[in-house]
C-alpha cells in the first residue's frame, strides 16, 4: 500500500535527508519508523502524504505515484490517510467534537453525516464524555486522542503518527499506544515514527530503522542485526 523505491530527498541546503530508501508497508500492517533525531523519519511521513516530493525515486501510496500525481489530486489522496503529530495540532478555540468535525466539514461531508461519525470516533478513542471540552481543558493524552479521532474520522487506509507519544508521560504513552494497536486491529495500517527504543523493542511489530537518511534496518525484510534486536512480543498494559 505504501511503497518507496530508491527514494532520495535532497534539500537545497544540507546533505540528503533520505538516501536511496526502498521499502513497502502492506495493508493493515503495523510498523515502527525509528532512528535518532534528523534520521529522516518525519521526511518519510511527509513524502507519504505528499507534503513534499522525492528528489529521486518514487513513492507510491494507495496506488498513486509521487512521480505523476497532479498537485490538485494530493488533497484527494490525503483524505485516505490519517495524520497525527507530537504537538496534537488541535484548534484551540474549538471543542473536541468541533475539531473532529472540522476534518469532515473541509472535505464537504454532508452535515447530517457529521454528528454520528464524530460521536463514533470519539467513543472509539474513549472521549465520548468530553466531546464539548476545549483542548486546554484536556490532558495531553486526551488531546492526542482527539487528534487521533480526527485522523480516524475519514476511515483512513493508514494512520501516520509522527512521535505521537513524544509529549506524553508513561501512562498516557501506554494508553495512546494501545489505542493505536486497537485501531490497527480493525484493519487500518499504522506507521508510527518514534525514537522510544524501549517501546519498539517491547513490541512484536515490524521496525524500519533510519540513520542519516539511510534505511539501515528493516525487520520485515531481513533478520535483525545485533545492534538492534527486536524483543519477543509482549503486551502493553492498557
Amino acid at each position, binding site marked *: 500500500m505504501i511503497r518507496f523505491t530508491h527514494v532520495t530527498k535532497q534539500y537545497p541546503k544540507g546533505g540528503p535527508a533520505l538516501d536511496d530508501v526502498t521499502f513497502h508497508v502492506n495493508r493493515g500492517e503495523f510498523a515502527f519508523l525509528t532512528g535518532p533525531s534528523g534520521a529522516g523519519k518525519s521526511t518519510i511521513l511527509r513524502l507519504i*502524504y505528499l*507534503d513534499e516530493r522525492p528528489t529521486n525515486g518514487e513513492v507510491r501510496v494507495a496506488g498513486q505515484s509521487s512521480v505523476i500525481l497532479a498537485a*490538485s489530486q494530493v*488533497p*484527494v*489522496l*490525503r*483524505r485516505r490517510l490519517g*495524520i497525527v503529530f507530537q504537538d496534537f*495540532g488541535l*484548534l484551540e*478555540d474549538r471543542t473536541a467534537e468541533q475539531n473532529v468535525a*472540522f*476534518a469532515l*466539514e*473541509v*472535505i*464537504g461531508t454532508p452535515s447530517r453525516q457529521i454528528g454520528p461519525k464524530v460521536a463514533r470516533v470519539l467513543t472509539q478513542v474513549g472521549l465520548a464524555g468530553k466531546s464539548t471540552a476545549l483542548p486546554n481543558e484536556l490532558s495531553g493524552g486526551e488531546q492526542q486522542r482527539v487528534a487521533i479521532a*480526527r485522523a480516524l474520522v*475519514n476511515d483512513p487506509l493508514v494512520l501516520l503518527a509522527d512521535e505521537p507519544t513524544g509529549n506524553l508521560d508513561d501512562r498516557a504513552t501506554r494508553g495512546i499506544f494501545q489505542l493505536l494497536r486497537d485501531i490497527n486491529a480493525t484493519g487500518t495500517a499504522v506507521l508510527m515514527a518514534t525514537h522510544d527504543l524501549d517501546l519498539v523493542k517491547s513490541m512484536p511489530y515490524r521496525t524500519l530503522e533510519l540513520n542519516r537518511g539511510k534505511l539501515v534496518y528493516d525487520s520485515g525484510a531481513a533478520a535483525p542485526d545485533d545492534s538492534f534486536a527486536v524483543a519477543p512480543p509482549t503486551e502493553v498494559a492498557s
Partner: protein
Amino acid sequence: MSLAWREALRAFRRAPMLSALSITTIAFSLFAFGLFGLVALNLRAALAQVEERVEVRGFVAEGTAPEATSAAVGDVAAFPEVQSVRLVTEVQALERARRELNEFDDVYEAGILPASIEVRLREGFRDPVHVRIIARRLEAYDFIDDIRYGEEWVEKLYRLRNVGSAVAISLGLTFALVAVIIIGSTIRMAVLARSREIHIMRLVGATNGFIRAPFLIEGFLKGLAGGVLALVLTWITYQFVGQYVAQATYFESGLAVLGVVGGALIGIIGSAISVGRHLRRV
C-alpha cells in the same frame, strides 16, 4: 450558512482586535486615497470653470454692414469646435464696459468701443492649438480688425492643466499602490495568524480552493467595511471643509459606490495574493 462564511465570520469573532485593526488600516489607506481624489476632483472642477472662459474675440471694423457680421456669426457657429458665438454691438460693448468698470463710467462715449464677435469653444477644444485655429479663421474675414484671445493666458492654463493631470495620475497611482501594499500586509498578518488552521485543513485533505474561500470572504468583508468607513470619513471631511473653508464638490453617488466596491476588490485581491503565497510556501 456555508462553512466558508462561517469560518470567515469566526475569524472576526476570534480576533476582534486584529480584525478592527485591519479594517481601520484599510479605511485610512482608502481615506488618504479618497481625500486625494476629492482634492483632484475639486481642482479639476475649478480648472474647468476657468477653461470655460477661454474665448476668441474678433473686433469688427467700423462701418461694417450688419448683414456681413450676421453671416459671419452663422458661419463660425457651424464650426465643430465652437460652442457658442455672440455678436456684441457697439452699444452693448459700451453698456458692458460701464457695468463692469463703473468707476470710469463718465469717460465712455458712444462709438468709443468697437463691435465684436465672441466665440466660445467646446470642451476638449480649449487648448492653444484649437484656439489659434479659430482665431485664424476669424481673422480671415476682411472686416475683422483685430483678434484677442489671451494667447499667453491660454498657454499657461493649458500647461497648468497638463501638469495637474500628470501630478494627479502619478500621485493617485502612488496612493493606490500604497493602499494596496498596506492592505495586502494587513491581510497577510491575518493569514499568518491562521496558519495553523491552514496547515490542518491541508492535512485533512481540503483543496486549495476550499482553504482560500474563507480568506477571500474575510478580505471582501474587511475591504467593504474599510471602504464604507473611508467614505464616511471623506464625507465628514467634505462637510467640515464646506462649513469652515470653502464650498467643494463631493463624489457623485456612482463614484462613491465605486470607491467602496474598489475597497472590497482590494480586500479580495490582497487576500488571494496573501493566501496564495502562503499556500505555495507551506
